[in-house]
């Protein structure tokens, strides 16, 4: 093994570790819902290569409105799934799509894009 190969190998191993750390150990951006005067818990979520915030905290028993603003045209994020609430919705690009539902049970529920690659979770307390 020559020096170049050694460098490439070490760089490769380093890169592997970086990719694993970067994607799998990404920190979550948590946001708690804000109740409007009408008692609806609202959260604005930006959709752009991911969801931010990606952990939404709401209280159970109160209606929730998630406002997804899709700030891109890329097709990966065009669908939003919230399967525990039987919701599959198209998000129009550069528009806010409001998704309303009533969480009855506490728990953590995933929301994802149509391909399950972008993901976030809804924590019902």
């Amino acid at each position, binding site marked *: 093994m*020559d020096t170049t*190969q050694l460098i*490439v*190998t070490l760089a*490769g191993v380093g*890169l*592997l570790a970086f*990719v*694993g750390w*970067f*994607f*799998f150990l*990404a*920190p979550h951006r948590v946001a708690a819902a*804000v109740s*409007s*005067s*009408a008692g*609806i818990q*609202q959260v*604005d979520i*930006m959709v*752009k*290569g*991911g*969801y*931010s915030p*990606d952990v939404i905290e709401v209280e159970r028993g109160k209606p929730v409105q998630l*406002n997804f*603003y899709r*700030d*891109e*045209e*890329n*097709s*990966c994020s065009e669908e939003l*799934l*919230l*399967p*525990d*609430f*039987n*919701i*599959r*919705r*198209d998000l*129009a*690009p*550069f*528009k*806010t799509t*409001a998704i309303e539902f009533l969480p009855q049970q506490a728990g953590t529920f995933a929301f*994802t*894009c*149509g*391909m*399950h*690659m*972008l*993901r976030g979770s809804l924590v019902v307390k």
Partner: protein
Amino acid sequence: METIPHHHPTPAAPAQPAAPAGGTETATLNIEGMTCASCSNFVEKALSRTPGVQRATVNLASEKATIEYLPGQIDRAGLKAAVEQAGYGVHEPVAPASPNVLASDQELDQRKAEAYQKLKRRFQVAVGLAVVIMPLSMLMLWPRMMNLIPTPVLNYVLLALTLPVLLYSGREFYVSAWNGFRHRTASMDTLIAVGTGAAFLYSLAATVIPHWFMQRGIMPEVYYDTTATIIALILLGKVLESRAKSKTSAAIKALMGLQAKTARVVRGGQEVDVPIEQVVPGDEVVVRPGEKVATDGVLLSGHSAVDESMLTGESLPVEKKQGDNVFGATLNKTGSFRFRVSKVGAETMLAQIVKLVEEAQGSRAPIQQLADKVSAVFVPVVVMIAIVTFVLWFDFAPEATRLPLALVNFVAVLIIACPCALGLATPTAIMVGTGKGAEHGVLIRNAEALEKAEKVTTVLLDKTGTITRGEPSVTDFVPVTGEATDRLLPLLAAVERQSEHPLAEAVVRYADAQGAAALSATAFQAVEGRGASATVDGQAILLGNRRLLIEHQVPMTAAAEQAAAQLLDQAKTVLYAAMGGQVVALIGVADTVRDTSVAAIRHLQQKGIEVVMMTGDNPQTAAKVAEQVGIKRYFAEVLPADKAGKVKELQAEGRVVAMVGDGINDAPALAQADIGLAMGGGTDVAMEAAGITLMRSDLQGVVTAIDLSRQTMRTIKQNLFFAFIYNTLGIPIAAGLLFPLTGWLLSPMLAAGAMALSSVSVLTNSLRLRAYKRTA
């Protein structure tokens, strides 16, 4: 842009001492009319200066202002006023209490169409340039041509041609990958961006600094053709995918499109056409032949046959008379009628169906769990495999070729991986399957119900209302004195027309069906628990049970006794008719088997499903009906409360049980069963309790439901198998795993072709379900 007033009056909110900190509330306003960053700054300032506002931030992109304010000093209306005084508008979203699912989002559709056009243009540009780049790159195969054009010049020409493919056609991949990178997420775009980006950057280096390569004994080869072709092929895949995907929701779009646009409403004695949105419950609506029924209601006057196939899948028109329910979106065939509107918008049957189908399409399929877990880690894992591939090739390939080989295989791995096929496998099939079900009047509640229905081994039928019509009808009319039926029937029917008893209704229906003349009866008298008497055509007529005749001292004749015994033996209810103090006819009444039951039960049995019947009737009646429809096993004298118990009994035998009932008094049994099918359509109770609702009132729907679920599940399994196999075989081959054995290497361009085809194959397979035809 309008001139911005420099001094704007603040809203007249009285200055109050600041409330204690922490008592703030947050409001979000949708601001209209902002065109640039200075507008948003202006709105932000205007809001911040407003008394009571603690903090205001305005986002130009989302056109939203987030305001923290003290509720004691200002309210939402005050905030709105402040924005308006600054010269901008506030868009108040109308909180839809019950969003009308039928209002399809036209704007969304338009945006989708625009996005599709854009995608097509990007694809066309990529293809147009790729077909020039490809042959130019191959010039080096002809040394004579190479002598004419020096390599550096050719490389710069190729670079110039590839740049638009990258920056215009492929721009979205890089933008999306970058957006994802910032969020520390990775998608398919990440793979494409890294793959094509690596090939391009290597080529760029080989073009600009070829000496660096040559000094190290490496030919400065360029991969512009690879870069351009990958982008063109992946865009081709996306174009096809986008086209196919829009077809998966075609069924639900068609349902939504059924809603009538206008209704002819009677207002102030005048018939006026009004938009459907203005129709309210209580309105009277006129429907002429050939017209669509505008919304749900109850028929007031007139009669007609109405085609309800769009809701129930039942192809024969349904007779409608006064008091019958009519449903929006159905088609009036023969007569004209008026109806009183009972439900509008989201309450209507059509809207309920659309909502149910939409919810089913958004539900989670348990079969998809593994694919979901794989999808979640797929892209980072593929990137890691690609890195390992690069390192291994670099370490083990001959020194002169190790860099290009490492690069080519690195790119091939990234490009061949197709998480999309995994992601599309289940939902597309479920969308097509549930949509197809709705077309046939089979409403599937969620993906889980579909999975359960596939596994069913035993169908338990509640006899009344499913196998049979659930209402009595005349099966036998036996004259016992030689008097002709033609003469007797109109007389008897005349008596029964006055009565409201279900048995009387059966006689009237029978008489009408036989075309008996309508006579009028006088001196009608209903005798509680016995029957009725009346005078028709000068004749005193008695019609009822045996007790009625005995109490009127009408003697039984031998012929009558014999006929009665025969009818009773067939488990029928017998009505006795007497005229002038003499028994003249016997009428046998029974709950009859639906015409379609026998065929449907046979279909189920042919599919290897055992059909079991359950009834509250005595064993003799149960045996008769079971024999008639070809059922071998049945439970008789089952009390309503024991129905769920019978389901359990079958389940204890290791069977997967589908329970079919009318949904009203079967709810516990429907819930106990592995899958409940509620028949008779549309009642909320039924829809709640059942996994599948059958809009058509016959057993054919059960066949359709099980058939469709089997086909859909088969499609899903094929899709998942293909997607997993494709990726588990494709990635190692692209990495060059076969090279030591066979010398095979996969060109990244072929990888791109395979990847584009894989997701399209999955979609096409799902769309095959659209060809589903129900048996019989």
